[in-house]
């Protein structure tokens, strides 16, 4: 179990830190080496300007991971606050539930396009768009959890005993919600990365000057018919590997956190 947890995480962090070490200046235009297929000197080949695809891909990965991290963090925070608001009063709860339904009712991609339409894309637009599309799922989980804990006898007891709201939040709610929030975070993170790549690919996300994976893939489309497969293949595979590594870690971790519960279901069967 332990191995399943740290192997993917270490690999993930290794690739990420590798990508941080890449200096933007090291990606140089070298027209003499343009359109080369993968070799030892250029692992992922070169593009039509002779830029090394391996370095470009790593750059893109760094951007993707950063955006995924920021949005996952923001969505989780937003989810926490909204679930908190929902717990105050049943009217507020109805409003929050309705908002969740509303946001879940549009396809993610349409919402993202809509937001970027309004905000004009770019890093800010993408992050806000991703945040607005990913909060409903985690809010729904947190809200249910919060309502459930509120009904627990020991929480009711604390209330009767005159413990204040903050005391209850700190001692009863947070210890239960924190693991859920972390699981939610790890689930949102890879989703956000994939959606960022998709929206950028369509041209609504990061601008074409950014070294994003979506940009690389969208550029590669013009060169596919001339057989330059490496332009699309390697960046995509690298992104896939990163997401798989993280999903692997997240799944194991989720099981790890929920082990008590799964133990319980086993014995009830």
């Amino acid at each position, binding site marked *: 179990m332990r191995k399943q947890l740290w192997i993917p995480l270490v690999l993930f962090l290794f690739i990420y830190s590798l990508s941080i070490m890449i200096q933007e200046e090291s990606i140089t235009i070298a027209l003499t080496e343009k359109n080369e297929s993968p070799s030892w000197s250029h692992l992922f080949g070169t593009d039509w300007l002779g830029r090394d695809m391996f370095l470009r891909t790593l750059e893109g990965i760094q951007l993707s991971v950063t955006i995924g991290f920021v949005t996952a963090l923001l969505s989780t925070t937003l989810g926490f606050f909204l679930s908190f608001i929902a717990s105050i009063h049943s009217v507020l709860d109805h409003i929050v539930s309705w908002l969740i339904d509303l946001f879940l009712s549009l396809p993610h991609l349409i919402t993202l396009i809509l937001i970027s*339409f309004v905000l004009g894309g770019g890093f800010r637009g993408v992050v806000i768009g991703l945040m607005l599309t990913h909060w409903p799922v985690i809010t729904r989980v947190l809200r249910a959890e919060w309502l459930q804990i509120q009904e627990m006898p020991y929480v009711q007891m604390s209330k009767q005993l005159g413990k204040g709201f903050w005391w209850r939040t700190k001692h009863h709610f947070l210890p239960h919600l924190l693991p859920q929030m972390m699981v939610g975070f790890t689930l949102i993170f890879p989703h956000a990365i994939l959606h960022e790549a998709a929206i950028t690919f*369509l041209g609504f996300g990061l601008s074409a000057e950014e070294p994003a994976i979506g940009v690389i893939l969208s550029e590669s489309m013009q060169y596919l018919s001339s057989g330059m497969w490496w332009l699309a293949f390697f960046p995509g595979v690298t992104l896939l590997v990163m997401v798989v590594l993280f999903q692997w870690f997240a799944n194991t971790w989720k099981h790890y956190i929920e082990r008590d519960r799964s133990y319980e279901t086993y014995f009830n069967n």
Partner: protein
Amino acid sequence: MKEFVIKRTIRLFTLLFAVSFLTFMLVYLSPIDPVRAYIGADMLLISPEQREAIQSYWGLNQSMFLQYKQWLTNLLSGDFGTSLIYRTPVFDVISDRFFSSILLIAIAWVSSGIFGMVFGTLAAMNEGKWLDRFIKGYCYVLLSTPGFWLGLLLLMVFSVWLGIFPTGLSAPIGITGSEVTFMDRLYHAILPAMTLSVVGVSNVCLHTRQKLVDVLRQPHILQARANGLFGMRLFIRHGLRHVMIPAVSVHFASFGELFGGAILAEQVFSYPGLAQAVVDAGLQGDVPLFLAIVVMSAVFVFVGNWLADMLYYLLDPRLRRGEKPS
């Protein structure tokens, strides 16, 4: 039963209304200038008076609420406005592409549903064995795969290398719309539909698998097995029926994701469907077309969710005969 249907239907309409209003408001507040989008590069050539004339012609100088009211009443009477980039009524632009998109989405929906349920079932029946691990692994990898990238790979393999499928357009070039046969459309829809199905399988599959694993552990299965039922008969009668309801319902609820996937697939394969129009409209600031498609996609998702709810209701006797779901 009646109450449930009515409640759900009312909710559908209130949410649709909210979506249309919010979208309209966001677009209204956005920095997009519809006049510029309409005029395009000739923007510098028109005088402020001409500009004003255009604005009042489109009703752009009215307040937001008035504009919204106008737009909504037009929409309800079937008038979707005029597309700025295509210079034709939005309704024509959409209806033209609607068939292409529906064909694509329908193929993907049906095939991913069937394959997802079959694979999920196989995995659950072999829980813990290599087949189960293989199917689960496949699903998890697919969940991490950018769908459009998979589309690029398929395009490279089948169209560029093998040359089996066309690289784009829902009909052969040089043939007028009326001459396009259904088979032509189908032929061009295969690759994008395949992309969508391959990705779409994983969700249904994992769901089916999990549900079936749970069901197979329930006491009624033990009873049925102890009393002599086994094999396919046991599985179909006491397992599959339990899995079908949630799996089909999850699949109906996945309309939204499918629609998003279709946008990407259509872009990769230059397949001129509804979803591709939204990209053009969004990039070029074609407000009427954009609004219409956003609302349509919402209708699409709502109908999917609504069907999922209704189906649950119709198929589960406990709900149908008036008991809360367990």
